[in-house]
């Protein structure tokens, strides 16, 4: 649910990056953090294990500018991708406004993508959301690797409802901001509907 603070004239939206383990969710956030002016962003909080796997979530607030006199802030979250962190993954989806599904383009991760997407639909339902109705973007990550599934085949398998499909290499930043823009636009368009 978009949070509008009339007292401080701020709109706060929550975007969650979802996807299988090691697909590059944290890398997306890290790239946004590294390439944003310090005054437009807050700290990047990463609750990770000693081996850098996300344990609970990564979090970063990002300020985009003003719309109709209201400061627009996006709270970006990632979920832990590993299968056994399902309980904490569910919690992060509370109050979500938009979801980015980060798919791993490597052939051997196809099953993991499908499983994670199914898990997303299920966990959204638990929180009372319908994937078919919320702002949603599909990112095909790791397009620079050798053993990847063609983008059309990936989209054919993973696209749910005609959502924007964006090819990316999160480690170099290719497609990272396009993804964020695509989901942010949908969230703000929802706001217009009221």
């Amino acid at each position, binding site marked *: *649910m978009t*949070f*509008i*603070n009339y*007292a401080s004239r701020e*709109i*706060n939206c*929550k975007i969650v990056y979802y996807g299988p383990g090691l697909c590059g969710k944290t890398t997306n956030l890290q790239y946004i953090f590294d390439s944003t002016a310090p005054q437009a962003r*807050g*700290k990047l*909080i990463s*609750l990770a294990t000693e081996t850098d796997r996300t344990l*609970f*979530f990564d*979090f970063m*607030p990002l300020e*985009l*500018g003003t*719309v*109709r*006199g*209201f400061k*627009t802030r996006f*709270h970006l979250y990632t979920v832990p991708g590993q299968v056994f962190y399902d*309980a*904490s993954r*569910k*919690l*992060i989806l*509370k*109050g979500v406004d938009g979801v980015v599904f980060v798919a791993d383009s490597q052939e051997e991760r196809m099953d993991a993508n499908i499983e994670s997407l199914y898990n997303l639909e299920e966990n959204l339902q638990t929180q009372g959301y319908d994937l078919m109705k919320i702002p949603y973007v599909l990112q095909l990550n790791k397009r620079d690797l050798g053993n990847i599934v063609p983008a059309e085949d990936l989209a054919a398998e993973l696209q749910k409802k005609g959502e924007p499909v964006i090819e990316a290499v999160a480690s170099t930043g290719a497609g990272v901001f396009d993804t964020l*823009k695509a989901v*942010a*636009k949908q969230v*703000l*368009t929802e*706001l*217009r509907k*009221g």
Partner: protein
Amino acid sequence: MDASAKVVFLVDKDGQEIASQGEVGNLDTTSLASLAAGNVAATGGMAQLIGEKEFPTLSHEGEKESIHISVVGRLLLVVVFDERSSLGLVKLRSKQVSHQLAKMFEEVTSADYDDVDSPFAGITDEDIDSLFS
């Protein structure tokens, strides 16, 4: 009600900060709000696993600074305090003020806002595009 606290926050259970009061200074209130909500959500998950509905209060005591969180309906009252106060006092005052807050939130949520126009109904595609230029 005075609990000799340093900072007091009201945070939505989804992690959005609603209000803060006190010696905020350089404190990263946005992150604190998000982590407090994550903390309550995680302990709430633990509560359900052992057959409890939720844990209505949480406290974390540090060497100098401490945090006390109480769940008030869908909101969280987060109190940051140091050695000028004590956990007992903060707990007592939080409990007392929680009743008042709960009553206030009930009034606010039951109020009729249907006649208030959303300032965003008129957002244009250009407004949205301008954020990304």
